[in-house]
């Protein structure tokens, strides 16, 4: 993947989503440890379920994640292979880099450049 510049809105949304999710998860844990399940069974009352604010917090974190991930993800590529392939040139595909030989006329390229710069051409 290409090195991207710091995509701070996306990262901000992802981080806040993560914080909200972990906070709601911890609140649920606190809630279940604090309610006395033995007492509820004795009084014949069922569990009241999660309080509304924890549920809302969890759903809000999902929304934040959705926005954040869309912003952080890179550009999408075309799904049809043809559009990708039509951009490929023969030079890119038929290059055979493992078999390159060095006895071509360009092998004096760097030396020629040095000579030319010395002669100020």
């Amino acid at each position, binding site marked *: 993947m*290409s*090195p991207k510049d710091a995509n701070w809105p996306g990262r901000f949304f992802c981080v806040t989503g993560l914080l909200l999710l972990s906070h709601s998860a911890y609140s649920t844990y606190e809630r279940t440890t604090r309610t006395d399940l033995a007492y509820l069974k004795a009084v014949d009352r069922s569990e009241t379920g999660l309080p509304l604010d924890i549920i809302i917090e969890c759903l809000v974190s999902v929304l934040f994640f959705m926005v954040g991930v869309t912003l952080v993800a890179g550009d999408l590529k075309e799904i049809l*292979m*043809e559009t990708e*392939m*039509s951009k*490929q040139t*023969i*030079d*890119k*595909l*038929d*290059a*055979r*880099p*493992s*078999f*390159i*030989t*060095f*006895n071509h006329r*360009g*092998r*004096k*390229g*760097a*030396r*020629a*450049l040095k000579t*030319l*710069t010395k*002669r100020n*051409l």
Partner: protein
Amino acid sequence: MFYPGCDDVSITFLEVLSLLAPSETRNSMSSFNFNAAVTTLQELRASGERNPELVVSLGNKIVRGKYTGGLGDEVWPVYEQIIIAALDVGDFQLADVRYNSASSSPRLTCLTALEKRFTRSTRVQRLLGMRYEAEGKLDQAAKIYEEILDVDETNVPAAKRQIAILNTRGETHEAIAALTRYLDTSYNDPESWLELCSLYLSQRMYQQAAFCMEEVLLLQGSNHVWHLKYAEILYTMAEHKLALKEFCRVIELCEDHVRGLYGVQLCTSQLLKTAPTVDLSDLNALATERILAVYSARGAPDELKRVVRRYLESA
């Protein structure tokens, strides 16, 4: 501009050489975009395209401008890429450029830095062999590859470099024999089949070249470029019917591919001379129409379209 030894070919070569100029001679040092350069090098590595001038110009900026620290772990494949491109261009200074790091010795070169990091690595040995090849010391390079293959018989890059040495020496028949032996064992390597195809084409053995392209098509059948090459070899062998099928496949895979359209037009023209049918003449007319439409869409002047139309009518 005239100096002894200059000919027309070198004039355009000079323009290419300007790309090799190190950064100090240009004013673009401040606008050097490190991220863009790294991305370009990555793309070139992924596609395997042979563009040594570009790699050397970027490599010069990165290494001599001391940007290597920003590469992190990516520095090793980038060094390999820069070394190979420098050998391609004949810049042995860049291939041996000093590797700047606070911890290691300042007189370390790119190649020895790779050797130090990856001790007893066949990949680094191969680079050393390529360096000897570029200098023209083919026997020493051959010895290195033999050593690699003594240790590990199945080392693919070393075997391929041996074939490249045979190519460098101009011993095409031995190269064909060696490549055939190699392909007897590893037959799912499209690059080697393509190399064998180009060797056969250089010897005008079109039947065998067509066979090689068929093997490539077995491996990568959705690539229109291989179908195009196969179709053009068939057309050269005067197998017009099969060539027409392959050219149609090219257009099917890549819409409005001009070279494919030309192929369809020429094949149908040849076939119409011997066995004319309605389908063939329809296809002929369609191909002509599409070619002219593509030329118009790309803004070709009317003069050019007239020339193309006259050529297609006479073909």
